[in-house]
């Protein structure tokens, strides 16, 4: 079979000592980049590009892919240990991951994140290998109406993230939508809600809001008393630092959920890992037997989004390699790199440069293994961070937040925004407004509005375009179902009560 021979060829290329070394370097760099909030794979890859011109293309590709993967693995570390999201998709990991750390299961959370990432990442690579070309056609069928439906599905997750007060969750989401709308309107160049400030023309960066609301909000909350809120002591012994059998069993469905959702959403150019993480988390919560426990530190709440995040990598490679269309910021730069080296991604790439394509695929497998091996022993090391006394740890978190935000935009204005959002995060905690819907609204609001307006432009104002196409109609139906879940649950609970 062609695939197997290609894969063998690829492994032959990828398993040379030189390429293993480059893979390792890439993974290592990527992990560090991922741990740092703010600084992301696109910037790192762009900065390293000139260096790669001296290398042979296959090795360079392997290294850059390693960075891409490594960053995904690394991003979960600060989310879990410090409630500082490393990049947009890691926000969802903060929800249960940080709580697990607070409960003394930080090491286990890191382990689950690594395992979920490995399973999902491998799944993504396998799917890429087996079904890339037909999937590419699927990606093309997806256009603005389908994106709109997808975003609706994502926003409907608010309903599942709501907690006690649906009204407050919706209000938080609306504020998120408002912040997302700030800046220059793409279609008319009209500037909205910029308060006359040129710095707001591009809107407010997600990183600023996420780090402010999550990380700073959390730290400020802990400053209420001098002793602060004690984190449960990190258990001793390697066995206690890794996930135990129960936790792993609880994650069985989550591993599958994350892999599939992440990969499918990754294929769509423009839809990102954040949407994938939220939807995967939402689905996990919807099918769970104990949904009310989500947000207090359940392992599946970490496994699902982390898996989705990683599977998305494999998915994003599909349109890039088979059509030459980048699926995300990182793949856009990878694509530029390929072109600079004289390689031409597209349907002909597999025929013209088989050793590159299969070498890349093989190295993605190897990369996943390397990252798993790298990350597991590092867990006890990272867990030590939790042992630092609060008066050292919390100022460091403030510092990392500042560095993270500044590294994205070099803007002191963004730092003053960060300060404001820190206070907002604290107020939200005090007043019991859930934070996740705010982030969800912020991430999806812009894309959803764009998709809706693009769709209506395509149909000349005809709303039926949203339901006449099978894919978008299907997703809107799913959205309606998701919205119905809490009502269904309430009705059920009512019935149970009536029976007593």
């Amino acid at each position, binding site marked *: 079979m062609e695939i197997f021979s290609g894969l063998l060829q690829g492994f032959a290329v990828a398993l040379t000592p030189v390429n293993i070394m480059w893979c390792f370097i890439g993974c290592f760099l990527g992990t560090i980049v991922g741990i740092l909030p703010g600084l992301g794979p696109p910037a790192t890859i762009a900065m390293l590009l000139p260096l790669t011109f001296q290398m042979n293309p296959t090795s360079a590709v392997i290294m850059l892919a390693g960075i891409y993967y490594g960053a995904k693995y690394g991003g979960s570390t600060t989310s879990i240990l410090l409630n500082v999201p490393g990049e947009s998709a890691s926000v969802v990991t903060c929800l249960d991951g940080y709580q697990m750390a607070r409960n003394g299961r930080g090491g286990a959370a890191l382990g689950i994140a690594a395992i979920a990432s490995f399973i999902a990442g491998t799944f993504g690579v396998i799917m890429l290998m087996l079904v890339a070309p037909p999937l590419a056609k699927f990606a093309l069928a997806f256009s603005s109406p389908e994106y709109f439906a997808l975003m609706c599905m994502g926003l409907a997750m608010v309903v599942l993230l709501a907690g006690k007060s649906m009204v407050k969750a919706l209000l938080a989401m609306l504020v998120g939508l408002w912040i997302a709308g700030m800046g220059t309107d793409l279609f008319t160049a009209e500037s909205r809600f910029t308060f006359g400030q040129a710095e707001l023309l591009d809107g407010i960066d997600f990183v600023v809001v996420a780090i402010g609301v999550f990380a700073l909000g959390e730290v400020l909350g802990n400053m209420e008393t001098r002793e602060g809120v004690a984190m449960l002591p990190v258990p001793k012994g390697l066995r206690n630092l890794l996930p135990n059998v129960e936790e792993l069993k609880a994650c069985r469905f989550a591993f599958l959920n994350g892999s599939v959702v992440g990969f499918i959403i990754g294929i769509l150019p423009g839809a990102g890992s954040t949407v994938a993480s939220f939807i995967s988390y939402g689905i996990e919560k919807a099918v769970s037997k104990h949904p009310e426990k989500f947000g207090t530190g359940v392992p599946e709440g970490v496994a699902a989004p982390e898996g989705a995040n990683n599977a998305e990598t494999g998915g994003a490679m599909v349109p890039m390699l088979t059509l030459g269309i980048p699926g995300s910021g990182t793949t856009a730069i990878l694509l530029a790199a390929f072109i600079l080296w004289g390689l031409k991604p597209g349907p002909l790439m597999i025929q013209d440069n088989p050793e590159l394509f299969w070498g890349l695929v093989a190295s993605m497998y190897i990369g996943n293994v390397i990252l798993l091996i790298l990350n597991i022993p590092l867990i006890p090391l990272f867990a030590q961070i939790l042992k630092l006394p609060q008066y050292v740890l919390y100022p460091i978190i403030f510092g990392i937040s500042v560095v993270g935000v500044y590294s994205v935009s*070099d803007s002191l204005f963004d730092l003053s925004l960060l300060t404001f959002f820190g206070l907002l995060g604290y107020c939200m905690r005090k007043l019991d407004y859930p934070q996740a819907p705010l982030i969800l609204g912020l991430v999806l609001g812009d894309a959803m509005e764009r998709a809706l307006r693009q769709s209506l432009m395509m149909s000349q104002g005809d709303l039926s375009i949203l339901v006449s196409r099978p894919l978008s109609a299907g997703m809107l139906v799913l959205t309606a179902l998701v919205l119905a879940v809490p009502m269904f649950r309430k009705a059920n609970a009512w019935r149970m009560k009536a029976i007593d």
Partner: protein
Amino acid sequence: MVKRILIAGSVAALVAANAGEVAAQGFKPTRPIEFLVHTGPGGGNDLLARAISNIVEKEKLLPVRMQVTNKTGGGGITAMSYLSEKKGETHTIALFANTWVNGPLMSKEAKVTLKDLTPIVRLVTEPGVIVVKADSPYKSLKDFIDDAKKQPGQLKQSGGSIGSRDNIVRQLLMKNTGTQWAYISFPGGGERRAALLGGHVQIMVMDPQEAGEHLRNGSLRILAQIAEKRMASLPDVPTVPEAGFNIPNYLVIRGVVGPPDMPAEAVKFWEAFFAKVAKTAAWKKYLADNLFEDGFQTTAELVKFVDVFTEQARTVLKDAGVKIYR
């Protein structure tokens, strides 16, 4: 007495002449050069700036380092206001692009226009290509326009923001032919191409580089090229005027600009410096690889060009119904 005056006069003249020469040779960079770009790492201007600094380093054209700094935001507005704060600075220059001209036209918040800064040289102009899907019924630009005439407002083009070249070319064509078709903005090149390849829009304007790969695998067809004269790589494709539509050739340009009040000797230095860069073989190869055109213009030419260019954009955008602020 007269002799003394004559001698004094000639000595003074000699000194003045030499001083003038010394002043003209006067500016030499002594600190690292800050080379600003308004895109993030990997973006169009960023890659160009890095290519330039690589060439400069290889050919040792400067005694000091050239450091590329990214000041992103507002499509150039952040970089422009940063530059405008460095009045009189001689070691900071920036790479500008179309958005530096168009952005301030459409944005109330912009406080700096290109005229406020010191134009130095124009470096490249970038041609574009008008493409359709390979299985599209349109074999020429005329076919598309004819179809647009039959169903006004029904055909669709994907592209960037409304101030981009994509839309300006569209406005010029529509006005010239009296037709109308819709324009749908997508923030990323990938999404625009996906819309075209997926059949959701019928036509788009692309960079020749972008189109290159799709041509090779046969998924796209080029109807016309937007360039002064036919590109060497596309000898059989008519330019838009050759295809029968006499619209002005609206260019995508990149050039170098300095902070306001840059001293004259520094401007002259940079003008001569970039003229040297533009003559190197490495630069010519870079242009050929990226399918750019050598659009070198001296300072004087650039100043005139910016006026014409700004007016062109202003007229087209106003006609298109965009709010113009200056």
